């Protein structure tokens, strides 16, 4: 009886186990399959016009739609002007609607107002795994970080990064023996050395023609960033303890004075007083030896000159720091399909055919280490930026009236450089302009 009972119970248990296994197997699909199904619907992504090509956007969209056949992504473009951004911000804030669900482009200095006014959906809960903060290049990520309450520290994410430094045509530097054994520019230890280099280049006929030794950035595009980069390199920060810009900085004064001197000595040009692209175009035409702009110019201008890495970089004299800034990715809180937008953004950020591809073609740097590590290790320009990013760096200033402060810097710099005011008057004018502006920064109220 006992034996029969044991056998019966054993058979019953075995049948039960089989039924249990079969039951489990027949349960509804696991979460992964559900997530796959959920990626459906329509979304619009608005991209700053120049980024469509430079972030390989059409390819990113095609791949996303192929991977998620039920999802449709419409590509829109917007201009990088404040006027265009203002229209977008107004739409979000005053109509509670957004033409696009996801935006690519815009520097933190342009996005301060929606950050302050809490118009952007935080990315914080997505910052795990492959997108955990330590997976990002710190210099780029910190420029997007906001001291907000927990869960709202990342209203934007850095999409493509850039650093400020000097870009030199090494074919020309070789003529004046200013390259090292590897063909890289010899890092100048002082601004006097850069001046000597520029003047020598301007005085020496190269390939039978007279060239411009140096062209700075004196327009709205980059001028404030070259000042902040020079100050960060020498002093570690361009801010006072209370958060205002330190216009009295010794390095800042030196930088402003140096820019005038290089022009006065006719070793440098002033194209960028009126043409934001003057320095880039001039170097691409082989007419300018050294420019002072974003690192991306090295790759882009080398490609334009038809000789890989002929344009290489050197840093600001000082302790090795610079300004790192990035083109942001963000979702308005009022987006109709934020879920799909986040999924698309995640894939675009992680994609090698986005960030890595862009670096190789246009020199816009990846903001994730995984994408940076995929770049050729022997490329001198990528190696330079890697070293630069491991040092101290800061992002652009982020004030509510930050754009007005940028314009004030450009106006006063140009006035000084054209003899309209002294250096002391320039610094005083900048301090006076700053005092009148709203310097509210994003973050906790």
């Amino acid at each position: 009886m006992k034996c029969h009972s044991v056998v019966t119970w054993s058979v019953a248990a075995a049948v039960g186990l089989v039924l249990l296994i079969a039951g489990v197997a027949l349960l509804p699909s696991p979460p992964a399959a559900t997530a796959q199904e959920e990626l459906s619907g329509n979304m619009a992504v608005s991209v700053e016009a120049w980024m469509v090509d430079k972030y390989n956007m059409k390819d990113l969209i095609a791949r996303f739609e192929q991977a998620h056949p039920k999802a449709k992504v419409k590509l829109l473009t917007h201009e990088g002007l404040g006027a265009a951004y203002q229209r977008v911000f107004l739409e979000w804030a005053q109509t509670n609607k957004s033409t696009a669900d996801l935006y690519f482009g815009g520097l933190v200095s342009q996005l301060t107002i929606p950050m302050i006014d809490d118009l952007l959906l935080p990315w914080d809960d997505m910052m795990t795994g492959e997108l955990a903060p330590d997976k990002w290049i710190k210099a780029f990520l910190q420029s997007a970080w906001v001291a907000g309450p927990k869960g709202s520290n990342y209203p934007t994410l850095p999409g493509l990064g850039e650093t400020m430094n000097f870009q030199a045509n090494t074919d020309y530097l070789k003529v004046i023996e200013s390259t090292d054994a590897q063909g890289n520019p010899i890092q100048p230890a002082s601004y006097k050395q850069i001046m000597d280099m520029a003047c020598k280049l301007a005085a020496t006929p190269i390939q039978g023609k007279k060239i411009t030794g140096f062209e700075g950035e004196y327009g709205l595009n980059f001028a404030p960033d070259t000042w902040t980069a020079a100050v960060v390199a020498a002093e570690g920060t361009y801010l006072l303890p209370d958060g205002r810009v330190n216009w009295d900085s010794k390095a800042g004064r030196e930088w402003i004075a140096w820019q005038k001197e290089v022009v006065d000595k006719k070793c440098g040009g002033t194209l960028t007083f009126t043409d934001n692209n003057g320095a880039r175009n001039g170097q691409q035409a082989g007419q300018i030896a050294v420019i002072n702009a974003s690192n991306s110019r090295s790759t882009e201008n080398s490609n334009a000159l038809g000789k890989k890495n002929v344009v290489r970089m050197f840093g600001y004299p000082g302790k090795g720091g610079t300004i790192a800034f990035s083109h942001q990715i963000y979702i308005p809180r009022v987006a109709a399909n934020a879920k799909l937008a986040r999924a698309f953004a995640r894939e675009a950020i992680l994609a090698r055919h986005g960030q890595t591809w862009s670096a190789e073609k246009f020199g816009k740097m990846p903001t994730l280490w995984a994408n940076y590590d995929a770049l050729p290790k022997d490329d001198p320009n990528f190696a330079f930026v890697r070293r630069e990013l491991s040092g101290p760096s800061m992002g652009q200033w982020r004030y509510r009236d930050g754009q007005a402060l940028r314009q004030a810097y450009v106006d006063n710099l140009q006035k000084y450089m054209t003899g309209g005011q002294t250096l002391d008057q320039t610094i005083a004018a900048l301090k006076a302009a700053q005092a009148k502006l709203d310097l509210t920064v994003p973050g906790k109220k």
Partner: protein
Amino acid sequence: MLLAFIAYPIVYSFFLTFSRFTIRDVKWFAAGLDNYRGVIVDPDFLTALSFTLSYTVVWVALSMGCALLVGVLLQQVRVGSTFFRGMLFLPTVVPVTMGFLMFQWILDPANGILNYVLKEIGLGGLALNWLSDRGTVFGSMVAVTLWGFGPWILLLAGLLAIPKELYEAARVDGASPAREFLYITLPQLRPTLMVVTTLQVIAGLKIFVPIYVLTSGGPANASLSLYFLVFQKINQYKLAYATTVGWVFTAIVTAVAIATAMAFRVRRDDA
């Protein structure tokens, strides 16, 4: 339709000039006259006003003078007149932005064709920084816009509409070309001159595209126009302030345009 697209934005923007504006909301009439006070004491506004008025005076005088001269010469041309008239029409059909980008290349101090030619013919001393020097940018803007916005076609059309019989009768009476110009051409052209001058004054005061393309208002605000200042302030997210500049600007344009038209009317009445 008229209310929605014209009246509403005008009234809205006018009220905005007395208000405080943020992206989130508008505090209607909270600013009182503060925006107007801010504009009047703003050095950028005064710089832009000075540039705009000087530019308009010089450009209108030159553009009218040159167009009249060329028109009168073409009036006399018998051979190849279609070709020359076609040339005058060219700036009108070339997209204006493309035309100014072409001038950016022509005036480039290092690579531009103007400085190249000057150096080649031994006038290297005249090869200047045409657009990025405070001393030359004004003249460069006037010259470039003579090409882009000169009233060539309008004045030529006016000249060609003058009956030939008047000139023939004058010649029979032994009138010199100068007397023909003074006593036939100018009086006959007066209605055209009135309209064209008024339009040119308005266009001069509203100069924007060449500044946007060529100088961004620089160097050191030396080519900052009122219209460009409005654009700059919008880019700085200062909408109420920009609107106030816009309204002051509109008032100036209206006043100058009316004064120009009145000046011609008075002269006609005198005549």
